[in-house]
Structure formats: structure tokens, C-alpha cells
């Protein structure tokens, strides 16, 4: 029904997507901080799901259901960074502390005395 080239491409995309999903979840479990965990999931897990959807596009062809999964890829690439940004802002407003040595952009570093003196 589907050609051999199509089957090989779909298999490769499924394997790549599985790898990225695995990387994303390992990052979610192992990284130390909510900001670092978000960094792992919002990029790696999104790439994994997008790769699976791209495999579906190759399988079904560029019309009908394949086009729907292309729309899904575009939607994921819009929403995943937006969601991660909103959650990180909420965490920072809640007062979840940063990891040692990290600062909010644009503020005086709390740990760096030289930079603080220069700012005064």
C-alpha cells in the first residue's frame, strides 16, 4: 500500500521521536529546578511529538489527515514556548528560587559583588 521509501522514512521519524521523548522525560526527572525541567520538556518533548506527527504526515500523504498533522506541528511549535514562558513567569512570581549563580535578566546579580559595585 505504501512504498518502501515511505516506510523507511516513517520508521526513521518514529525512532527519532522516541529518542526525543525519552530525552525530555529524563530531563524532567533528573534536572534540579523547575526552570531547568521546563527547558528539557518544552524543547525535547515538543520535538518528539512533532516528529511523530511528521511521521503521520509521511504515512498519510500531504492531503487529508496528513495535512491535519502538519497543522498540529505548527500548533505545537506555537504553544509549547508560550506555555513554558507563562509557567516560568508564574513560578518566578510565586518565588521559586533560581539555582545558584543564575539571575533574572536585567537585575543586579546577587552573588557577584563586583558587578553590584559597578552598578552603584
Amino acid at each position, binding site marked *: 500500500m505504501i512504498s518502501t521509501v515511505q516506510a523507511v522514512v516513517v520508521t526513521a521519524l518514529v525512532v527519532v521521536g522516541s529518542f526525543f521523548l525519552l530525552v525530555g522525560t529524563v530531563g524532567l526527572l533528573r534536572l534540579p529546578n*523547575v526552570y531547568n*525541567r521546563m527547558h528539557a520538556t518544552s524543547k525535547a518533548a515538543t520535538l518528539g511529538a512533532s516528529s511523530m506527527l511528521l511521521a*503521520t504526515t509521511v504515512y498519510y500523504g500531504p492531503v487529508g*489527515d496528513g495535512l491535519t498533522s502538519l497543522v498540529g506541528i505548527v500548533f505545537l511549535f506555537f504553544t509549547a514556548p508560550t506555555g513554558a514562558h507563562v509557567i516560568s513567569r*508564574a513560578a518566578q512570581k510565586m518565588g521559586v528560587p533560581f539555582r545558584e549563580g543564575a539571575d533574572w535578566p536585567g537585575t543586579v546579580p546577587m552573588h557577584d559583588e563586583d558587578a553590584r559595585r559597578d552598578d552603584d
Partner: protein
Amino acid sequence: MASEVPAFLETAVLGGLVLASVVTLLAGYRVIRGPTVPDRVVGLETIGTNVVAIAALFALQTGEGLFVTVSLVLAIIGFISTIAVARFITEGDIIE
């Protein structure tokens, strides 16, 4: 799967389904144990993304193209719930 697809494709899709399911279960650890509320939200968002991938793989395995639409709807619901929880954390309520 649909009619006569190569055996390696069937094996790859089945392996991908098993791995995505195991990974989704593991993400539940962060939802249960996560020290802060944003940790749990990130865990739930990861589960949502993984279920999108599972729905796409299921569309490949069964040959039913309808499950692609299911994955799109799941992505939309996950995004809306993430925004709602984040707004609940910062503002205190969702609709004022």
C-alpha cells in the same frame, strides 16, 4: 495496522508506542512528587505532549486517520489548561 505494511515499520511503531507509554508513566512521578506547583504543571504538560505523540502513533498503528484529529484536540486542551493554571497561580482566579 492497515493492509500490507513492512514488518520493520510495524515493529518500530509498536516499540514507539511502548516507549511513549512508559515515558508518560514516568512523568507522573514529577506530578506526584514535584516540590512546587509549577513542577506539577510542567509534569502535566509533558504528559499532554506525550499523549499527543501516542495518539499520532496510534493513528499509524491502526490505520485510522481520525486519531490525528484526536491528537490535535489534545494539544489544544493541554495548552488551554496550562494557561489557565498559570493564570490561577499568578492572579488568584481565572475569569474575573
